[in-house]
């Protein structure tokens, strides 16, 4: 789901950094209020957990597979703010150390995946759990995949409108919303089913012990 560097305009990533900085500051304040002195080690270990959960295999019919995101699982177990902070740290390390994603797309990826995904997962879980907990867990995993996809598709899709040459040629990502929304969201809506199933299984295992 990561957008690589070079496809987002400064008109997008600079305001996104401002928004993300506010969200990071709020997340840290929230966490300091709720978590004791063990916040730093806990956040570091959860970031590592988030990093490696992104390597967990999501089997697909036909013997193929993709990688999970694990955001729904982290959000349900630990809450949205710690998930947002941990995912942001993972994205920072991925961008600067492992060369995945990138520094210009970091705030957009962090806001979409870390904040949008985890808040949507928690809302879905809370709404559906009174009816059926497994439905709530499935919704958490599915929403944690689909909501970031929608947000990223929108950010990509507005690039031709906000960053183009005098002749009307795009300067960054070339496709508009009519292309990005179906191209990004539909595959993720299908992959989200796998993420939802994994969330049901993992959180189910954790709760049963």
């Amino acid at each position: 789901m990561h957008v690589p560097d070079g496809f987002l305009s400064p008109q997008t990533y600079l305001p996104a950094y401002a928004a993300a900085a506010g969200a990071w500051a709020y997340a840290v304040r929230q966490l300091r209020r709720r978590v004791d002195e063990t916040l730093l080690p806990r956040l570091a270990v959860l970031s590592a957990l988030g990093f490696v959960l992104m390597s967990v295999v999501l089997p697909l019919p036909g013997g193929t597979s993709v990688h999970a995101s694990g955001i729904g699982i982290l959000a349900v177990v630990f809450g949205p703010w710690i998930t947002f902070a941990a995912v942001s740290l993972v994205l920072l390390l991925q961008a600067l150390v492992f060369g995945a994603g990138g520094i210009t797309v970091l705030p957009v990826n962090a806001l979409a995946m870390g904040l949008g995904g985890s808040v949507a997962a928690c809302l879905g879980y809370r709404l559906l759990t009174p009816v059926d907990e497994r439905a709530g867990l499935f919704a958490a995993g599915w929403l944690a995949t689909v909501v970031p996809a929608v947000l990223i598709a929108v950010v990509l899709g507005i690039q031709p409108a906000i960053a183009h040459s005098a002749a009307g040629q795009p300067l960054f990502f070339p496709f508009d919303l009519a292309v990005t929304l179906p191209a990004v969201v539909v595959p993720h809506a299908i992959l989200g089913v796998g993420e939802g199933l994994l969330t049901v299984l993992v959180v189910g295992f954790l709760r049963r012990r």
Partner: protein
Amino acid sequence: MKDRLLLLCYAAAVIAATSVHDPRWLAGGLLVAVALAGRQAPAIGWRALRAVLFFSLLVTVGYAAGALFGQAVSVDYLILINIRVYLLIFLTFVLAARVDLLRALNFSRDLAFLATLALSQIITFRRLFDDLRLAAESRRLRRLRLREGYLQSAAAAVHLFDRAEHDAREIALAMRSRGFFQPEAKGDARGG
């Protein structure tokens, strides 16, 4: 200080590379980045190519395919976007090769500490995850059914959760025993 300065230069270069829309300037920037990479340039170049190939090819082919449907397609745009994307990822890999990230992040002690701890834990968790994957593969006689595949992935994830809880507790205890959480000892414990 040198690492922090290089990180700032990298940030400035990234902003410049996304603010300039002339492919000749970007190509010039790429030459400078290659010069900065020195002997590592071929290895970094190859790594950068592999990192951008899938997404860039997808966008390039998708955009070029627009010509089949009568849309205006600009070759200049394709050159611009591909040089820009490649330059940015090349710069990132040069940064990773030339800069000690943990020193560069030292402007915030908490962030440097967090990054150090997270990186060390990532190495541990990756090794553990590889061990789990290899152990599962060595015991597998046939391709797993879909349900079995999910159960295996879920079991691995649960094991990683257990390990995360355990490690977080252990690290917190180790830090407490060394006086890290006492305000007056905080600076000393962090080497400040």
